[in-house]
């Protein structure tokens, strides 16, 4: 009896997926897509959603794209909204990034990625350790040597509060060098721009930030990137050394990606997957991506979910060690 039901179910699932495959194959594109942006205009989330939406529309992958900025509660407001109005949000994607993992761990909002439908991570940015152009540091090993002598002397700035991403990345990097991450002196600024001003004015010797934010600045000679947390050298930045090649095994990717309301249908997930996959092949996307210093990092559906779980563990361990949990 039970077996029969199981069989029945699996057949129907197969049938359903065949059906969806054929329908998505027939309809070449999505009719509409609405982006919820949990932060204000001009921020990283905003630029990711608008950049992606723009390409999707210009390449006729989606007919109609709309955007909604819904800031508040460090992103919690938008998550709550998406969950509360789930039935009405069939064509909605919310942009988010690593902070959704960190903030749900630290309890800033009660929900986690498990309460939503993770759709895909689309791009990544790696952590970067940066100094001003006139800094005495010319390579990462000098920083490590100074830290060994006196951890207090190596102050690291970042554009967010203690316990958030910039701090955790810096802590992870020094942990990878074999130091106690609690000894990292992290100086919090309330925005990336102000943290950069702090670095350039000579207030903080080192800045922990995302590669995308500083790649162009390093090309114009304002700053020097000492190391990044990518697993290997990047095509976009062939001269920037990675930590792994210096024997520090710290790898960290700040992904940006999209979530749908809880209970999103398999058909929709497949359609979005198809649209994103097609998007990567367009020149339009290559232009937008390179301009913003993004790196393609496509993980859809179950892969994305697994990645999120791994990152939750990595961040959780570090936050416990630092005493934030």
């Amino acid at each position, binding site marked *: 009896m039970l077996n029969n039901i199981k069989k029945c179910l699996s057949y129907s699932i197969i049938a359903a997926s065949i059906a969806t495959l054929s329908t998505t194959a027939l309809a070449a594109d999505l009719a509409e897509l609405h982006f919820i942006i949990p932060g*204000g205009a001009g921020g990283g989330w905003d630029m990711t959603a608008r950049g992606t939406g723009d390409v999707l529309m210009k390449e006729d992958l989606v007919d109609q794209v709309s955007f909604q900025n*819904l800031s508040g509660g460090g992103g*919690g407001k938008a998550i709550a909204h998406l969950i509360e109005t789930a039935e009405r949000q069939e064509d909605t994607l919310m942009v988010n990034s690593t902070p959704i993992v960190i903030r749900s761990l630290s309890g800033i909002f009660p929900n986690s990625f498990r309460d939503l439908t993770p759709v895909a991570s689309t791009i990544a940015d790696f952590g970067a350790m940066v100094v001003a152009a006139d800094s005495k540091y010319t390579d990462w090993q000098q920083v490590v040597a100074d830290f060994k002598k006196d951890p207090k002397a190596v102050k690291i700035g970042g554009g967010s*509060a203690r316990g958030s991403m910039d701090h955790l990345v810096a802590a992870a990097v020094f942990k990878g060098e074999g130091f106690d991450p609690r000894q990292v002196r992290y100086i*919090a600024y309330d*925005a990336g721009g102000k943290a950069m001003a702090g670095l350039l004015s000579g207030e903080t010797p080192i800045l922990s930030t995302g590669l995308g934010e500083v790649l162009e600045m390093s090309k114009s000679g304002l700053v020097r990137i000492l190391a990044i947390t990518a697993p290997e050298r990047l095509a976009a930045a062939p001269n920037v050394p990675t930590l792994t090649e210096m024997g520090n095994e710290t790898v960290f990717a700040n992904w940006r990606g999209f979530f749908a309301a809880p209970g999103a249908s398999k058909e929709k997930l497949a359609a979005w997957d198809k649209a994103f996959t097609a998007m990567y092949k367009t020149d339009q996307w290559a232009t937008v991506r390179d301009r913003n210093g993004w790196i393609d990092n496509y993980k859809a559906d179950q892969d994305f979910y697994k990645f999120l779980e791994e990152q939750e563990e990595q961040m959780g361990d570090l936050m416990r060690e630092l005493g934030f949990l």
Partner: protein
Amino acid sequence: MIDGILAGLYTVMLPTNLMMVVIGCFVGTFIGMLPGLGPISAIALMIPITYGLEPSSGMILMAGVYYGAVFGGSTSSILINAPGCSSTVVTAFDGYPMAQKGQAGKALALAAYSSFTGGTLSAIMLLIAAPALAKVSLSFQSTDYFALMLVGLSAVAAFAGKGQVLKAWMMTILGLILATVGIDKGIGVPRFTFGLTDLLDGFSFLLLAMATFALGETLMGILKPADTSATEQSSITDLGSMKVTKEEFKELAPVSIRSSILGFFVGVLPGAGATIAAFLSYGLERNIAPKDKREEFGKGSMRGLVAPESANNAASSGSFVPLLTLGIPGSGTTAIMLGALISYGVQPGPRLYIDNPEIFWSVIISMYVGNIVLMVLNLPLIPYISKLLAVPRTVLLPMIIFFSITGVYLVSFNTMDVFIMIAVAVIAIFLRLASFPLAPLLLGFILGGLMEENLRRSLMLSDGSLSFLWERPITLGFSLTAVLVIVAPILLTLFNKYRNRPLKMQESN
């Protein structure tokens, strides 16, 4: 550099770009006039339009919207006490009382002239020294910002009426307390949020200003209907009159120039901004004004209107220095513009004026043109706009309530903000009835957050030692100024008492 400036001039003079300046100023002024909707909302609205434009045209349009909105924001501050954006909150302190005295047209005209002065002077400063000013942007460290905020706070007395200094300090402290609500910016812990998601981001400055000033004032008007009879008596021609006498001009010109220069340099600092600039220039002018003029502040002083209006416009132009020369956005508005520049494939930074001189210089030169456009657009409108106050109160008051509430809602799209606003307005009414001044509350609130953040950073950087207070000359200078501003009046009173004592003894003998 001359080649670059000429290339920029040529770019601005292209018909499409001149049109962009006009459209930008026009849209900016109108969105700015709506209470609550300021430059951020205006620029966010323009972003989809700028996508298809040339980088220079897009930047010129956005810059026009930006200073247009700051320009227009003063209108609603003056007429209905509902600030158009946070940088025009201070404008309401004296602009609204002037309008209540039947000088709405004059107040609007003065605001326009001051904005023009601020905008034009800073455009000239940008033209002469923009690349070099990058150094000024980076000359301030956390300790200096902390000391600068101290100077700002020490000017509390400037925001208090006579004999209200103690009450003013109490309200300042309330403002400092309110600034601590929300996720703490240093260690990321929620403070005083009572588990409410809506309080995680803290209170918005604009919401507090709208609730205490616009809503509070309107509700008071309903509670005390006889109070505003003066407005109704003043004839409609008076409201629209824009006449500024020669003596007034002579008195106000130095105020405007001083405030423009102060505002510009505060704007150049990425950690301050137009709102802080307006508060600082208001405090400065109150403190250096002659005694009889000083008492007019808060009751419709022309100096008190001209100072913040010059400063906020100068500061918004000044904020283009860190944006264009370093790629550092000092405010939410410039952050959006940075995003737009990047999506054009233009990277702002020290190489911008070398690699893309036409963009760099055309934005700066367009400000000069834009300020003239704003004057031409706005001056003829003033007599008509100011007659808004001649609308019967039964229509005007509900309109103000409607615009204030929608204004706050449209900034965040959060209904909770409307409830918070109403609650704050009710509390504000009680405070008004007990004659507590509300401006110091806003001063404490806006400076409090920045002050705490910078103090904390300074302490972490110096490993907990207070030595930063005297190690940096800028910090030391500001700290001493703050102490002087607070202590000087007390010493002066004591000194006068001491000097008068023997005389009194002689008299009694």
